[in-house]
């Protein structure tokens, strides 16, 4: 093995200095403490994203993005294409798992205050990546062109129309017209396979570079304990120790994905018919449920604002606050834990959980 790898690395080093990368990787370490387990979730999200890209490319070989053919092409993939059923189900399940691990990664970073100085940009690029992931989920959901997808998209894009002044334009931009039609499908397909991947790659590159550049953050509590001598500063080499453990996790994830695909294959549903009424109890995918449920519970009018708009406004402001949290919780940069932000995080987590469960009832 070494006889093959070494000459290749030397060849690359002579041409673009791969040796410095190799050097860097050799010296990269990962802090060891009781919260080390959370370090794995970023890599897990990256692994699942790679799974999405690979399975997505394979699906792209057969998928046809028009209302006449979309459903039939997915049906063809799952019934006629060799292992098409596996690739399609893995793609659908992995999308959900990826968004789940992204949320876990985000919340672990939040509670462990890894966003504090100097890692503010890592946090911001990460938050943008999370929004992109949800955009991937929303745009991809429409592509099979079945009843659930069609009406979930109709309801979801309707929300955009609730924003005053720009709402109408936003709705038309998203739908490619007034209603959800073939134009919407083409547009969402373009977003899903070109626009969002382009943006995601750029942001991902920035995010990963920043992580390598700044190293792994140690939680303030552990940092303090080390400073006070109550705890030893331990670490493990990234390569190969941490990476091998990462790979164990990735193999386990692969096993879970395979099991889900084989035992709980993603359903095809019925082809979308724009002229029928929306199915009773239509709701979006689980990661949008908390917003959906909140909007359902808001009264028709809040003060002088339309209820729906008030809800969207609150969520937008909340998201904006969440993105700039490193600047609000600047004290964390001095190693000081501000309980308010921990409390805020717990509130947000509980709120999202409760609303999601209510929506499932």
């Amino acid at each position, binding site marked *: 093995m070494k006889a093959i790898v070494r000459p290749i690395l030397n060849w690359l080093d002579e041409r673009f200095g791969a040796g410095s990368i190799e050097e860097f990787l050799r010296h990269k370490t990962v802090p060891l403490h009781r919260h080390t387990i959370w370090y794995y979730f970023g890599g897990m999200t990256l692994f699942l994203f790679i799974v999405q890209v690979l399975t997505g490319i394979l699906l792209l070989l057969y998928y046809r993005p028009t209302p006449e053919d979309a459903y039939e092409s997915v049906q063809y993939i799952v019934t006629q294409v060799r292992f098409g059923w596996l690739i399609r189900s893995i793609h659908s399940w992995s999308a959900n798992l990826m968004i789940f691990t992204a949320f876990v990664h985000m919340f672990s970073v939040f509670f462990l205050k890894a966003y504090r100085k100097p890692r503010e940009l890592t946090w911001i690029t990460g938050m943008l990546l999370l929004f992109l992931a949800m955009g991937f989920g929303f745009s991809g959901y429409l592509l099979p062109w079945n009843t659930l997808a069609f009406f979930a998209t109709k309801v979801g894009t309707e929300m955009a129309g609730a924003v005053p002044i720009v709402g109408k334009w936003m709705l038309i931009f998203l739908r490619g017209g007034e209603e959800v039609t073939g134009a919407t499908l083409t547009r969402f397909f373009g977003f899903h396979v070109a626009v969002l991947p382009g943006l995601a790659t750029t942001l991902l590159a920035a995010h990963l570079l920043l992580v390598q550049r700044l190293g792994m953050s140690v939680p303030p509590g552990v940092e303090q304990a080390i400073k006070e001598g109550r705890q030893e500063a331990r670490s493990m080499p990234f390569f190969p120790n941490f990476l091998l453990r990462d790979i164990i996790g990735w193999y386990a994830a692969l*096993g879970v994905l*395979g099991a889900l695909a084989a035992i709980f*294959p993603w359903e095809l549903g019925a082809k979308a018919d724009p002229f029928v009424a929306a199915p009773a109890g239509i709701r979006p995918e689980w990661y949008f449920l908390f917003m959906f449920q909140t909007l359902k519970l808001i009264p028709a009018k809040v003060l002088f604002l339309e209820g729906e708009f008030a809800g969207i406004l609150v969520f937008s402001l909340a998201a904006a606050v969440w993105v700039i949290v490193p600047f609000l919780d600047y004290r964390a940069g001095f190693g000081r834990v501000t309980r308010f932000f921990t409390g805020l995080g717990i509130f947000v987590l509980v709120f999202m959980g409760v609303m999601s469960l209510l929506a499932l009832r």
Partner: protein
Amino acid sequence: MNKFAALLLLLLSGALLAFGEAPKDSCVTCHSALDGKQSEPAKKFDSDIHRQAGLGCADCHGGDRNDDSMNAMSPAKGFRGAPKKTQIPEFCARCHSDIAYMHRYNPKMRADQLSQYLTSVHGKRLKQGDTKVAACVDCHSVHDILAVSDSRAPVYPMNVATTCGHCHSDPAHMKGYNIPTDQVEKYSKSVHAQMIAQGDTSAPTCTTCHGNHGATPPGVASVANVCGTCHVFFAQLFEKSPHQAAFTKMGLPGCVQCHSNHEIVKPSDDWVGTGPNSVCMNCHAAGDKGFAAAQKIAGDIARLKTFLGRAEDTLTTAEHSGMEVSTPKVELASAHEALVKARVIVHSFNPAEVQKLTDQGTEISRKAYQAGVVALEERDVRRKGLGVSLIFIVLAISGLYLKIRQIESRPSS
């Protein structure tokens, strides 16, 4: 004084104008003020269709509606009074058989009710002096007559059975006529009654088969024609079948022989064949041609049902396991259709005709079943493949774990 009188006159005429909506009808005015039975007609008359057409009491009973005195009811003023039971049909027909008169109110209205009624059992018996039979007012009510299309009318399709049942279900009333009194009770158990109850006013009720004014039970020979008014295809099949001639010869009442007349329930497949619930066995016996035919027909239908059920079960299992079987499911619908058609063709009593359809349905069911079996086999292959890949994954994870242990057990350089 003159000014005062003029003012009074003005006020009076104003009052008269204000309250002068309906034309003056002294009959209603006086009779409403009376007690008990005398006031009933006047009080009921508000909702009557004749009143809405602008007619009053005098238009039927004669007399003078503008006369407030008892003179209004004098024969000189054409007063006819209340007709006796036996006079009722002609009493109503005075207008209702006058086509020119009726068409002033409703151009589509028929004017042959009396002539039809006189052909009916009710009409004939009334002419003989039997006052227990139904005449116009027994079905249509009197003084509060509603249009047939009004859902509150006793002759509205949903209410017809109850109206007929007022007499025909009363054993005391029907004593001496030697006809059953359980028709309404039996009818209420029928599919036709269920359809009516669900609001389908095109479903048959008593008058649909028996007629309304010319009510006559259909004769034995005409039963199939009556049922065939709606069940056209069945009547045509029956007519061409060997049963038509045989039933006619034996004086058997066609459809009613197997399906009953009033208690027409949803038939089940075990009515055909040689089993305990079979209607064929009412006439046929082991060894005769009919017995063999019944056996063959029942056997073919049972076979189709078996194959259909098997295919459905397999496809459902496959679907619940997550396999994509929408195409075979759609194709299986044709087998269902074949079963429905076979049940219709039974009425030709020709085993070969029935077999054509059951063979079709069985072939489709077989193919669908095969598709289901293939889907389940594929499911098993996938699960086995999953098992194998999980083994490899576990091996890989174990290998990695051991490698980690190996690396970390080395003293650090």
